[in-house]
């Protein structure tokens, strides 16, 4: 397998027109429906969306974890030049854990209850490195220490149930980073944790990115997490990317009506408490029957601004502005500027 050398400016991960479909008795569930985005080396990219927007499925598709399910994955996932969708399983297995690693939402169920945390971390190291058990153990202890487990030598032999939620997630992160992967996919890594612990874990992820140079794909439903951690953001709705932007751009100048809705439903201390939160009305569409036009149209307050009911009939394309921003909406740039709810 020849390894292509890519200049550092090229994206590490490049997802193009990714589709993940699950055939069920009720019909075809389109969990991801033509998703495209890039992750540059060392970048932290947030993937935001409501439950069922396809963000977790995207993470699992990148690792090829959906191959054992009935899911149909098409499109292109280029990682360092190699297409992961069509890569043989043996090659994917070499990449998993070594170059691509994953941290899951609930660290209690994601760690094996019958093995010590140390053995689980050193196993992850030994799969990809021909080293002695002792060397792997040393490496695991070193990683446990790095992610902030106190007394790592002693805790090496402890079982997952003997740790707190935050400590367990630290173990998961140590396990994911033990082979210094180039891309870490963190699937709601802080959702199951206390708020104070959340901040610690996010800080740890940021620190580790700086230290190991791993890019991070942070899957979350929490815009607050995105604001704190990410360099750029992909906003997902019904399996599609509706907006992509740098994190400051997104919060300062959101373009898509769905992003406006997300930001409006986010509590903020700097706003007057008498201003009620504005939740987005209605429900996301069923993934069995995504509307032929814009998927967000039924919940969108601006579709009347677009002539000839295009929002109902025609799916808007994801339009890139050439400066790293992309938006999927029929509204014109001028309209978006005037219609956008005023952010404080």
């Amino acid at each position, binding site marked *: 397998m020849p390894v292509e050398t890519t200049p550092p400016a090229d994206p590490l991960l490049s997802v193009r027109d990714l589709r993940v479909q699950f055939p069920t008795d009720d019909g075809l569930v389109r969990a991801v429906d033509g998703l495209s985005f890039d992750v540059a080396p060392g970048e932290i990219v947030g993937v935001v969306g409501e439950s069922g927007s396809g963000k977790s499925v995207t993470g699992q598709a990148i*690792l090829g*974890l959906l191959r*054992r399910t009935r899911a149909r994955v098409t499109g292109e996932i280029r990682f360092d030049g190699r297409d992961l969708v069509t890569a043989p399983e043996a090659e994917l*297995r*070499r*990449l*998993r*854990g*070594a170059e691509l*690693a*994953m941290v*899951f939402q*609930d660290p209690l*169920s*994601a*760690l*094996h*209850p*019958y*093995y010590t945390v140390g053995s689980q971390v050193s*196993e*992850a190291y030994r*799969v*990809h490195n021909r080293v002695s058990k002792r060397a792997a153990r040393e490496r695991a202890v070193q990683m446990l220490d790095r992610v902030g487990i106190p007394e790592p030598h002693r805790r090496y032999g402890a*079982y997952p*149930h*003997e740790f707190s939620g935050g400590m367990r997630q630290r173990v*998961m992160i140590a*396990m994911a980073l033990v082979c210094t992967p180039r891309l870490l996919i963190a699937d709601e890594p802080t959702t199951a944790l206390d708020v104070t612990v959340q901040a610690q874990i996010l800080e740890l992820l940021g620190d580790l990115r700086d230290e190991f140079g791993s890019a991070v794909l942070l899957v979350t439903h929490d815009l607050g997490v995105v604001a704190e951690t990410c360099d750029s953001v992909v906003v997902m709705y019904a399996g599609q990317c509706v907006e992509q932007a740098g994190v400051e751009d997104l919060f300062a100048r959101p373009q898509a009506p769905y992003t406006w809705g997300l930001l409006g439903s986010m509590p903020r201390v700097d706003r007057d408490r008498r201003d009620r939160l504005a939740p987005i009305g209605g429900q996301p569409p069923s993934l069995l029957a995504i509307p032929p036009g814009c998927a967000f149209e039924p919940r969108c307050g601006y579709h009347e601004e677009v002539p000839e009911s295009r929002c109902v009939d025609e799916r808007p394309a994801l339009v890139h502005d050439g400066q790293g921003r992309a938006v999927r909406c029929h509204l014109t740039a001028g309209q978006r500027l005037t219609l956008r709810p005023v952010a404080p």
Partner: protein
Amino acid sequence: MLRYLLGRIAGALTVVVVVSVVTFAIFQLAPRLTGANMAFYYTGKSTSEAQAAAVAQKFGFDKPLPEQYWTFMSGIVAGRDLSDGVTEVRCPAPCLGYSFRQNRPVLEMIGEAFPVTLGLTLGAAVLWLLFGVAAGVLSAVRRGSVFDRLATAVALIGVSVPEFFTGMLLIYLLTSGPAWLRLYPDGINYVPLTEDPVGWFAAMVPPWTCLALLFAALYARLTRATMLETLSEDYVRTAWAKGLPPRTVVGRHGLRAVLPPIVTLVGLDVGALLGGVVLVETLFSFPGLGRLAYRAITSQDLPVIMGVTIVGALLIVCANLIVDLLYGVLDPRVRNAR
């Protein structure tokens, strides 16, 4: 861990005491209810009234039940002098009773029969674990495949066909079936392991097969179901995400989680079987505990029935205890819980 261990052992001892009380009570009460003279159950076949009265006196059947129970239990510790009115015998400790029908201490008979049952049970357990668990794992990994369907069908047959049927079929085919199958032209006869290991093994194979067929089917179903559940667990997904080969994911991460329920069931099944594999032993005429009990029941040899019952109960309690202790070893969460 130590507290867990001591707790379990104390529990097991309590159960043994309760079981001995209940067994004793049942076998004392039943003859009283039917109005038969207790003495006849304890003596040889031809017993005169005078003899019976002497036996009743010797055994203290007129004494209160707690005192009789105490005598019986202290016999286990210290031995007893017993008599059927004609012969006086010394039943040395531990004395579980003396069969005047066969003129032998009960413990000696059990001691002779137990190795047969032990060999039968353990051998069969090895067979059914090997085939049952392997078939279950393969079925789960290749769910919906031809193998899975075939295994399901075979398991269904295995569960539904009673062991006396497969046993008789085996005996017929192997002793007087077609010439190429007639591997045991002289019949399937039990040979003690110490006398002739090869002969022992050869004689054991048919009853092992007969027993294992039934249990392998049950274990295959259990393993398949538990394995399917385990393979959809988050920690198995983590194992895939580490880049482990399928062999390791299924064999190390999957099978490890399937182990506790299987070990539990094996312990209980082996414990129950050790008390006597009545059908198979009777069918193959193997002199094990099951056949001993069966014969004692048909000849109303009360001391033997009682002895086998208590020993059987003791074996089940021991098996339970071992399962509990193994569970502590297998599941770190149980270990720390108490």
